[in-house]
């Protein structure tokens, strides 16, 4: 939509690895809404969940409108599970999973997907790694065979690994090094997380990516890729019984190879000091600022807290009717864009972000002060019943729109189940949103929009722009 500027780039926590038109984009400006639930999206009776004997979890989401299925295999491992010094290995391994197995060497899997007119891709986030194909339903069994085979059968040669590392480095250049806003996003996250590996870039630090080896990839693979650490999601023109039978015949034959312990990452100490940084890049022609606050995720929050943050992100900073947009862009006329977002889907504590781009003539520190003032005014004014209802209805409506896309449905369940959520927690989300009160929203703002728990970044052309205006 041409009249909205997307200002925040740090919010992309998932990388769609291979570039095809059907790439998945998890995360994004509408993260709060994207986390939306599926209670209406899929009536409870429609969605099935079961476990195979080898520990593989299975979710089936029927959608009978077209003779098509979306087949996704999610592993409960992501960039935040990487050993120190090996940042980027989760994503690199995701690329390498396309290099073949003993049974299906080289590109046979991709060639087979192509031969039947399927689309495929894969993605990595901090908490999960996923592989998917979309095909006509009669080919589901074939895909399950291949995907089950590469759960534990990966074969890597230097001939395949060496060029792929270059591809990943090119991807890092494309996503980050070539993009000043993405570089700022990396710096803010590194500053925000004092101890948790969420502070590391999802794609890895370049110097560490450069040093990754075939052995690193295989070690990470053997440690984490196993049926007892994975979730299969099949959405589309199938029944749970069909999927169960096919899954038993394919995935069911894979022996668990890894000992999977609880996912314990180093946690954050109390945050006591606001962090501020700036990134100067000669290419910056439009300055901007972003601030990330450390907040609870849907998994770590107390009951209702994460949903209050969902509504807060919407009322405070989603779209042209939001508080920040009205105050800064419309009323005070000092910004060309301003907003907020919340990434609730995460295993550990997560981020609530605010962002703004000043109009010419306004400095970033003036804008930042105005944002702080606007947030204080928001807390003082409270949320009107109309604003609250509008936000809640709009968030819940997204769960109806989501029913139009089997891929979206598959993604929601997969993301939830690999970050500590359950089918029930996804399905109950609209009801929990409905229960959020105006006081909950204001309490969330008071509690969590605490600068001591934040890192603020300025994107500027050169350091002299900073002046001494920072308060």
């Amino acid at each position, binding site marked *: *939509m041409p009249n909205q500027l997307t200002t925040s780039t740090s919010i992309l926590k998932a990388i769609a690895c291979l570039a095809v038109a059907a790439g998945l984009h998890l995360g994004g400006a509408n993260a709060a809404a994207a986390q939306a639930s599926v209670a209406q999206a899929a009536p409870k009776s429609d969605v099935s969940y079961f476990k195979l004997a080898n520990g593989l979890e299975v979710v089936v989401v029927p959608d009978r409108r077209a003779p098509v299925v979306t087949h996704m295999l999610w592993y409960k491992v992501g960039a935040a599970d990487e050993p120190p010094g090996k940042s980027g290995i989760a994503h690199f391994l995701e690329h390498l999973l396309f290099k073949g197995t003993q049974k299906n060497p080289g590109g046979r899997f991709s060639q087979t997907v192509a*031969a039947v007119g399927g689309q495929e891709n894969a993605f990595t986030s901090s908490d999960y790694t996923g592989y998917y194909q979309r095909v006509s339903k009669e080919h589901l069994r074939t895909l399950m065979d291949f995907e089950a085979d590469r759960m534990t059968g990966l074969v890597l040669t230097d001939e395949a690994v060496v060029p792929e590392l270059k591809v990943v480095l090119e991807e890092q250049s494309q996503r980050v090094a070539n993009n000043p806003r993405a570089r700022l996003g990396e710096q803010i996250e590194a500053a925000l997380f004092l101890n948790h590996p969420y502070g590391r870039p999802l794609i890895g630090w370049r110097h560490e990516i450069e040093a990754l080896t075939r052995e690193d990839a295989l070690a990470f693979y053997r440690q984490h890729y196993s049926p007892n650490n994975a979730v299969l999601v099949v959405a589309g023109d199938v029944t749970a019984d069909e999927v169960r039978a096919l899954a038993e015949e394919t995935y069911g034959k894979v022996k668990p190879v890894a000992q999977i312990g609880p996912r314990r990452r180093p946690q954050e100490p109390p945050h006591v000091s606001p962090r501020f940084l700036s990134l100067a890049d000669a290419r910056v022609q439009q300055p901007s600022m972003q601030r990330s606050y450390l907040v609870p995720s849907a998994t770590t929050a107390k009951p209702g807290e994460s949903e209050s943050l969902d509504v807060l992100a919407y009322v405070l900073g989603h779209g042209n*009717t939001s508080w920040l947009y009205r105050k800064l862009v419309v009323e005070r006329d000092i910004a060309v864009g301003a907003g907020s977002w919340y990434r609730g889907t995460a295993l550990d504590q997560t981020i609530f972000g605010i962002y703004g781009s000043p109009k010419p003539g306004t400095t970033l520190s003036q804008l930042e002060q105005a944002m702080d003032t606007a947030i204080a005014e928001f807390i003082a004014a409270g949320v009107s019943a109309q604003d609250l209802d509008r936000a809640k209805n709009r968030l819940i409506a997204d769960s109806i729109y989501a029913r*139009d896309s089997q891929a979206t449905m598959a993604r929601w369940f997969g993301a939830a189940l690999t970050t500590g959520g359950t089918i029930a927690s996804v399905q109950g989300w609209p009801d929990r949103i409905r229960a959020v009160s105006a006081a909950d929203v204001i309490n969330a703002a008071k509690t969590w929009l605490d600068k001591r728990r934040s890192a603020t970044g300025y994107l500027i052309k050169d350091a002299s722009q900073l002046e001494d205006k920072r308060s």
Partner: protein
Amino acid sequence: MIRHRSIRGLLAFCWLAAVAIALAPAPASATNIERVVSPGGIEAWLVREPSLPLIAMNFAFLGGANQDPNEKPGVANMVAAMLDEGAGELNDSAFQRRLEETAFEMRFSVTRDYFYGAARMLRDKQDESLDLLRLALTKPRFDAHAIARIHGQTLAGLRRESTNPTTIATRTWWRRAFANHAYGRPSGGTLESVPTITADDIRGYAKRVLTRSTLKVSVVGDIDAASLGKALDRVFGDLPATGELTPIPERPLDAAGRRVVSQLDVPQSVVLMGGVGLSRKDSDFIPAFVVNHILGGGSFTSRLYDEVRDKRGLAYGVYSYLLPLRHSALFMVSTQASAERTAEAVELIESLVRRMAEDGPTEDELAKAKSYLKGSYALNFDTSAKIANLLLQVQLDDLGIDYIERRNGLIDAVTIADAKRAAKRLAESGLFVTVVGRPKGLESKDPGG
């Protein structure tokens, strides 16, 4: 809206998606298309889908950015940004609030040839939703304060893009390839043009372009033909019957063989290459589409993907596509490579394109491509929004309401002789290349002219 972080430039991405959809073969069962004509004579194609309480409506008018005044690029883009900024009695914020209250999603966008609208509504809010759409199209306010605000946002975007290598490569390519032609103007406008765009410019464009005479509509969802007929009159009935489009001359690409390198301090170079392609009406378009799929279409098995990415690790993304504009037919290739290896990537791609033109695909490649293109048919019919978009594209390309049923057969009928003949026509006179970055050993070539 989420900006897609695709490796494809935004334009390339959107376009490719549209083509892939329009060309997809289709299972007849997925689409029972009704031609609905409203009492007032407005036509729409409808696929009824009662299993979800939603309605998707896509529509388009002829004349996108190519109808911008010559000295003021960006007007169409401004119109698209302004239609939901207040209409009728509702000012900008009141209108936006009503959109949210009804959970009605309304998006307008512009390509070189078309002005697009895409709407999604809840079935149970269709009256309120359609009313808002009617207001936006027929009673937009274009208030001065809203225009000023959108100016500011547009300019911020342009400033941001001004040092983005992908934008520079794209803008340079079009400016040089289509000098003194509407296609050479940047659709988004320029830092100079946007501030000069007035309410009169915006109104003038809307009056000339948003008319019933070129309107095409497709609808998918829980609505019957009779209700849709009434809805069409309500939403579009008050638009002017006809407008006044500036004729756009045909312009075959003649810039091939040249290369323009723009220096920018980024570690990775952005490369855009374009040559002559085939028009959508060309009898060899379908064979060319199949050949392009083999060469660089969006799968992990194309020649470009295999040679440039898989074997050599030169790039994260590399792909090609046909771009049949209404007034020029193009074939495009795009990639991004490190400064050290850009020259190698460019030369390799040029040789792969040449080799395809000279020898065509193999029998085996052709068989596999046909299998893929036929098999992937159904994937274009799994969401209402995708079906609506596909039906619209088929209408715009004037392929006929039975096209979706015929599509598989057309792909299947492509022989190796057809493919070889079509391959020779891809970039027949070579490629015009723009590169942005610090590519080692790669210089501009005959950049004048």
